[in-house]
């Protein structure tokens, strides 16, 4: 599994190098395009501030009051029986509902348990690997006026379950359990 970490490390420099060379060959004004695209990054980062403030305050309050710990202790036996750390359960539950809420939870988990802990890594992979099913459903179907969704919600949520299981299995295999 050392090999996988090596690919992870080398992947981004190779990708960036390729994008730059390809852009130069195609005579794109690389630096100017970079700056133009980068401006959008600032907009995105600033626009998520209110989402994260709202969600992190709620999570921090929930945690500081001791309510989160009580909840964890309550669900822990059932979750550990199936091999899921209880700490990750709130993230799993909110992931299909709201992307920014999940982002808040992920950063909270990484802050509290450390990015290189089992929970930190699992939260990272979970956040990166599933998407906000309800959001996609509402926005995409809402925008074009689809009223009867058919099996879409069922299929989307089942796919999320597959994604969550895959994330847990892959993290355990690559980094080892806790």
């Amino acid at each position: 599994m050392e090999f996988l970490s090596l690919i992870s490390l080398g992947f981004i420099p190779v990708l960036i190098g390729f994008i730059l060379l390809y852009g130069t060959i195609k005579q794109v004004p690389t630096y100017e395009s970079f700056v133009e695209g980068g401006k959008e990054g600032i907009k995105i980062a600033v626009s998520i501030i209110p989402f994260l403030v709202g969600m992190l305050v709620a999570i921090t309050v929930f945690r500081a009051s001791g309510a989160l710990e009580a909840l964890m202790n309550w669900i822990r036996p059932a979750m550990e029986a199936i091999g899921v750390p209880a700490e990750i359960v709130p993230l799993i539950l909110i992931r299909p509902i709201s992307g920014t809420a999940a982002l808040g939870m992920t950063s909270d988990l990484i802050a509290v348990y450390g990015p290189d802990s089992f929970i930190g890594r699992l939260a990272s992979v979970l956040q990166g690997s599933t998407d906000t099913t309800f959001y996609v459903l509402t926005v995409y179907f809402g925008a074009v006026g689809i009223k009867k969704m058919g099996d879409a919600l069922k299929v989307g949520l089942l796919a999320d379950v597959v994604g969550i299981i895959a994330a847990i299995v892959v993290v355990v295999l690559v980094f080892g359990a806790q």
Partner: protein
Amino acid sequence: MVNYIWVFMTIVGFVFAMFNGTIEEVNKAIFDGAKEAVTLCIGLISILVFWLGMMRIAQESGLLDLLSKLFRPLVKRVFPDVPTNHPAMGYILSNMIANMFGLGNAATPLGIKAMEELKQLNGGKNSASRSMVTFLAINTASITIIPTTVIAIRMNYNSASPTEIVVPTLIATIISMLGAVMIDRYFYNRRSRKG
């Protein structure tokens, strides 16, 4: 739904604190949480600017279009109801590529365009067609090559190796994508057996 969860967490936290004697911690938590969120967003700026800048180069050099051409034969098999040269196919592909590179904001308008085209293909009906359900399933389980925000958060909290989760994320998303396609097929077959 998020609204209820949000209010629930805050109110339950307050009530719990009253019985638990942690009201002081909760007061501190309000300001700590807010501060943490802003610090985090400021930390995200660096990598978002860098990555979106890179992606703009990839877009303008035609690299993203090249990728969609590469994936076309594969995606065609997943959407047997969509004619190969129909504009819907183009939008579906660009949406998937944008998702792969963590360009959520660019992906959404493309996805909506794809849905519009799929609706027209379906005779403008207000019920979801087979391809629409497939597109949605693929979208919620999309393959992620660079989980930009996650890497940024890990950097923010001093990870020894912020990018070590790239390959695990890629593997997990490939599995969930395959799962989504199979689940979608299963439900489609069930529908067509019934109807």
